[in-house]
């Protein structure tokens, strides 16, 4: 997992509510596609017109947002399907952090497994950041600093965000969860031993 410390760059404003993972990556792109190839298909239903050409109106087709590392989004970002391909597609398109008023629980969990940071800020703050970016797209840079747990807006405005301390440590170090949990193998085995006695019907074969 790529460690996440600080990311600075253009922040693409896409303030729609309920952006679902079907829109982030179409399901047929999950079939027979490697993770690395998914970035090219991020948001294709909005990014491309019916004839396959780019829609110049769509924010990620406009400079300086074409390779923006940060996305500003509306509430309930990543709702719908649990497909982790949505995170792989965003990461493949160069996005390292999404700033939104709220996230779907499954999307947020998937993002954290892949070093993509979901940052929760109040809706008014996300709007303020988006407005500042829209005023001066080419100069307006946003910083997401996980070490200090702050977002710094284009006007130097500083916004604190919350993140679980254990998750923060794992992201900063780029740690894999499986290795971490396997250190608890003894405790898991002991729990399972007790559970086999308490709920034997759970244990098939």
């Amino acid at each position: 997992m790529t460690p996440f410390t600080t990311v600075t760059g253009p922040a693409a404003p896409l303030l729609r509510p309920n952006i679902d993972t079907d829109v982030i990556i179409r399901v047929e792109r999950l079939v027979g596609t490697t993770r690395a190839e998914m970035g090219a298909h991020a948001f294709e239903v909005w990014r491309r017109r019916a004839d396959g050409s780019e829609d110049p109106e769509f924010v990620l087709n406009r400079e300086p947002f074409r390779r923006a590392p940060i996305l500003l989004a509306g509430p309930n970002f990543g709702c719908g399907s649990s497909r982790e391909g949505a995170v792989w597609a965003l990461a493949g398109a160069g996005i390292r952090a999404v700033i939104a008023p709220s996230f779907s629980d499954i999307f947020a969990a998937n993002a954290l497994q892949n070093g993509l940071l979901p940052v929760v800020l109040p809706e008014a703050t996300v709007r303020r950041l988006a407005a500042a970016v829209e005023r001066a797209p080419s100069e307006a840079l946003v910083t997401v600093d996980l070490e200090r747990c702050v977002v710094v807006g284009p006007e130097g405005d500083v916004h604190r965000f919350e993140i679980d301390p254990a998750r923060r440590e794992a992201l900063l170090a780029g740690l894999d969860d499986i290795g971490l949990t396997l250190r608890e193998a003894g405790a898991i085995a002991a729990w399972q031993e007790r559970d086999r006695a308490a709920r034997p019907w759970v244990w098939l074969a």
Partner: protein
Amino acid sequence: MPATLLDRLWALHRIGPAGGGQDLIHIDRILLHDLSGARALTEVAEKGYAIPNPGLAFATPDHAVSSAPGRTAETFAKGAGGVKALREGAARHGIRLFDLGEDGQGIVHVMGPELGIVLPGLSVICGDSHTCTNGGLGALAFGVGSSELAHALATQTLRVAKPRSMRIRFEGAFPAGTTAKDAVLAAIGRLGAGAGAGYAVEWAGSAVRALPVEARLTLCNLTIELGARIGFVAPDERVFEWVAGRDLAPKGEMWERAVAHWRTLRSDDDAVFDAEQVIDAGTVAPQVTWGTSPEHVIPVDATIPDPKDAPDATRRRAWEEALAYQGLEPGRPIAGTPIDWVFIGSCTNARLSDLREAAALLRGRRVAAGVTAWVVPGSVRVKREAEAEGLDRVFTEAGFAWREPGCSLCVAANGEAVPPGARCVSTSNRNFVGRQGRGARTHLASPAMAAAAAVAGRIVDVRSFAP
């Protein structure tokens, strides 16, 4: 200290703290399908991890497989790789696979309860957001991504924060014509598609207790469309009766022990929830979605909403875009809207009771000219039982296609799709942009509403449509 059902289910599976706000919880069942399941098995193999409890994992292909009669894994060639990876991964680790053409195969959330793989009180995960369906039996069930699936395969646990508790009670009785699908769509419409984020939802109240088990599976299925990863109904005698005798359900003395334990799985009368909603069941009419989020839903006798009435500017824009995509005009009645397709299927509404409900409306009737209508049964067993009752004949004589079990047009991952611009009344769970195919327009509704629409050739109020 009074406890909620969530408290009890959580305590039952908690191994210990996992740092920060998270717990390490035991996962009793892992379900694998041909997209996320195959990927997770591949990831486990690549990283060199063992799978210590293969007997607690089960696999079946459902997503990227054709539903055409006589299909094999190769019928949809692009999906064949996922099926192959699922077969190989399952064989390598000794995981039981219910393969295409075999008894037991089906949509993972249909076959799991049906075979007794899922039981009340179990913690269940699958790489699929509609895993919450299994909460209809009183299981703690939720969807995860491929990485968490791999984590559970390698450790039989997950690191996860305990959600907050929300109880949604439907009190009273649902009117005639109103199904569990309508009830949950109405709740999503009233509360919003993000209202449940961070919560586990306990569906309760007298109207829910009166629901048959398969209807509870439908109710819990759409909990994710409310934003909650977990939804459940406290298990009761109806559930125990439904589970009894299923292939992998406990038998004999073990059954008695299990039922005694399951009877303790309920919220205390004085339990306090972090959020609570009460809906008068008597006010819930048959529902149909008009837009591109499940929260874009109205009673079938209502008019299409006007964006100028949206609660804020963000939603106004979202409504405008949804109406443009759907090709609808605000202020007009939704009933009467001409349709091109009808899909009866999916983990929401493809069980035997759903097919019976639709067939009851179709006996002696014909699908309207110009409408393509499909039934995709939820599993091999549902299909077989429906055929034994002659339901397949009812559907085919009415002009429906009778197909092989899988996700099919709910998610359009298998080469089957509603054509661009075509309007489909669907018993599935998502009306997202492009969900049923690029440019396809989806209206979510109950099986009876879908069957009525097929006959009328337009969206129609099932209550005005005497069986």
